[in-house]
């Protein structure tokens, strides 16, 4: 059974923005809230040069990396357009206004 961790509420994340979740000492997960209030979670690193995706501009269901403007699909973590590469995704869901993140996946991608 998946172990879900409560990391906060939808209102904690700005619409078309992101917050980070520290996992262990080294890694960060970026938790995104889109314009239509969907929530996605990715490792906070662009597949290109590890840019902090949490700081990018969120548009539709994508984020533009702040370092070199690669566009990453939030659902799959895959680079869009001519670029290729993929950032690991972490299962996340909203339940009763709380945001829950799949702990085993989070721990695995952070390792």
């Amino acid at each position: 059974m998946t172990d879900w961790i409560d990391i906060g509420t939808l209102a904690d994340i700005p619409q078309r923005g992101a917050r980070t979740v520290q996992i262990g000492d080294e890694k960060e997960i970026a938790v995104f809230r889109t314009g239509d209030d969907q929530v996605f979670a990715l490792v906070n690193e662009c597949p290109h040069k590890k840019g902090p995706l949490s700081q990018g501009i969120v548009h539709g269901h994508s984020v533009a990396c702040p370092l070199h403007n690669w566009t990453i699909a939030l659902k799959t973590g895959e680079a869009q357009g001519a670029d290729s590469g993929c950032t690991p995704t972490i299962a996340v869901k909203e339940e009763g206004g709380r945001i829950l993140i799949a702990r085993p996946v989070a721990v695995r991608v952070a390792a």
Partner: protein
Amino acid sequence: MEFQIGTEPVADGEDILLMPSDDVREHLVVIGNGMAGCRAVEELLARDGTRYRVTIFGAEPYVNYNRIMLSPVLAGEKTFEQIVINDRAWYDDNGIDLIVADPVTAIDRAAKSVTARSGRTVHYDKLLIATGSDPFIIPVPGKDLPGVISFRDMKDVDTMLDAAGKGGDAVVIGGGLLGLEAAHGLTLRGMKVTVIHLMDTLMERQLDEAAGWLLKSALEARGQTILTGANTESIYGDGKVEGVRLKDGTEIPASLVVMAVGIRPSTALARDAGLAVNRGIQVDDHMVTSDADVLAVGECVEHDGNVYGLVAPLWDMCRSLADGLTDRHSGYRGSVTSTKLKVAGLDVFSAGDFSGGEGCEDIVLRDASRGVYKRVVVKDDKVVGAVLYGDTADGGWYFDLLKKGEDVADIRDLLIFGQAFASGGGALDPKAAVAALSDDAEICGCNGVSKGQVFACISAGACSLDAVRAGCKASASCGSCTGLVENLLSVVLGDEVQSGPKTMCKCTSFGHDDVRREIVAQGMRSIPEVMQRLHWSTPDGCSSCRPALNYYLLCALPGDYVDDQQSRFVNERMHANIQKDGTYSVVPRMWGGLTNPRELRAIADVVEKFNAPMVKVTGGQRLDIFGIRKEDLPAVWADLNAAGMVSGHAYGKSLRTVKTCVGSEWCRFGTQDSTGLGVKTERMTWGSWMPHKFKIAVSGCPRNCAEATIKDFGIVCVDSGYELHVGGNGGIHVRATDFLCKVATEQEALDYCAAFTQLYREEARYLERTAPWIERVGVDYVKSRIVEDDAGREALRARFLFSQQFMQDDPWAERAAGQHAELHQPLAPIAIAAE
């Protein structure tokens, strides 16, 4: 559901305007705030915007929205805001009085007035009935139970979303387009859906048996249960709906029942008023009813024996109606319709008569593995009907052949393979394809514009996409026909097509200049408003257009516009420069390049306290502290603020630095106090947002130690005054400045600087530095605005100073004081050890 400004529901009975008007124009009262009513008003305004005073009554509490798009809202693909056609501002801008949530309940033709549910009575000179249609409710027991709804308006969608939120089972009665759309949306929202259809195949009015079967299989593969030939006997439940019982005794439990079996013209109001009504309200070719002062349009009318439930005929009717109201003569002649649909994401097309019969021959292509089915019905060598499933690309071509009644004997063998093959094999040149279309072939479905109308518009002088849009509205809505219009332009004009400025980004077909102009002309006040009014193709733009729009609005509405942080690049959101490792560098402002022991100590302390690995003097004579973590930024800013330093904006599309030399105060050659003037210039210009980064320099003599001739604005002091230079940069393409003019006093130098800065702020495109801007518009143009036009210069200067009073707040101070502190902090930590 949240509503943004302009689309908010209005409280029932809110008194909007019933004051006696001193407006002496004829009063047009419209009953119905839907697609037909508003479209008719739009067409009327396009012909004569001043002739009528307009009042619109709506039964629903909303502004005009696109009812066809309720399915995507239910499916979660669009929000309500995205399906609004005309927002509040449209009504306001056109002087239209909108009365919502107050349905009209009676028409008194003798007194020429209408009365609404709230009791308010309004007199009319002309009355337009656009009441649309009502969902047909089959009269079975239980039809009135709570939980039994239709699928017709926003309220129904809200009810369905509520029910879906609770999960469970839903039954949709009706396997036509509307029912299947409802079923699709409810399935996507997580409900277990059963579709009950009386006939043997789905969508039997649009599809033949084979296509209906393909559709049924595809829907079943998605988890829906489809019962055809199923006759509803009753809806059962104790106090609320619990299920549906069929005539054969089958019971299907459900907490929600959607009745989508059809619609019929809403004619009760007209009937009660004694107007001639048959199946619909009877109208003539100008949409006039049996009363010369009462018109009717849309799904509620019957024209020449026909009642229509599609959008294209409705647009035709609205045009004829507006022509009639403005004394033009182009009567409605009825519409031949085709149906091109996406049902639950599956492409379906049908046109004409495909029922077969005497003398009809079927040409059929089935490709089960591709999920494609095509059937063309030919009679006397003419296409009389077509059904396409899975691949509808050739729908328009078949429809065109059908309407023209063209003889297809020669291409019959290849007819079923589509236009490309039938017209000579291989793929057609798109220009040839569009050239081959008949004059009445529809180009723009949104606005019902035919090829002939686009041609006429081009012949009348339109030689760019924008001009065609302005002239005949083709491609001015959803933009999906933009390619067709461009091909038409090049067919007619060849190389003379003006490509116009490039579009801002792929979200829009408008260029930067158009968007800036429209923002000002239409008084738009927010990014969503711009995207809505200019028909953005994406829900919330992209990382390219959003920062540009944010800047354009900020520039157009100083002090008024609420900045959108999420549309700013990270540097401007974090007020620091992001570096390759994700840390930031911080540059405090040093006015004119001057500093002092206190500031230097504060910088040194910050470097030590936060373990900054590097400090560097920048090209603009400031100190840059590298390697600061996002979490530490507020504390760094607080420490620098405490020493009196503010943000250097070294990260922004904004005024960065004013570089100086020491000038007459220390230098043997200095002619004027360049350092002092630099400080004054920076005090005047700091904090201002720009299309791109902006640098100023003041050199104390022509030796030009501050390198003023490669800056956006450069001042070179000479014995007799100040030489002003513009448009230089030291970027990828080094460009020396153009000489603007020479002035005698420091104050003039400052005034010209302010005016030039504002001209650049107001007219350059986002991310266009002054150098390419000046090369584009010409330095003579800039001189004409700044040097030769004293009043214009003064106005620009005044606008700059006005906007500066809202901009010169230190962003560091706000953040150090705690604003948006959460953006620097992680949401929550997750420990790994416990795993």
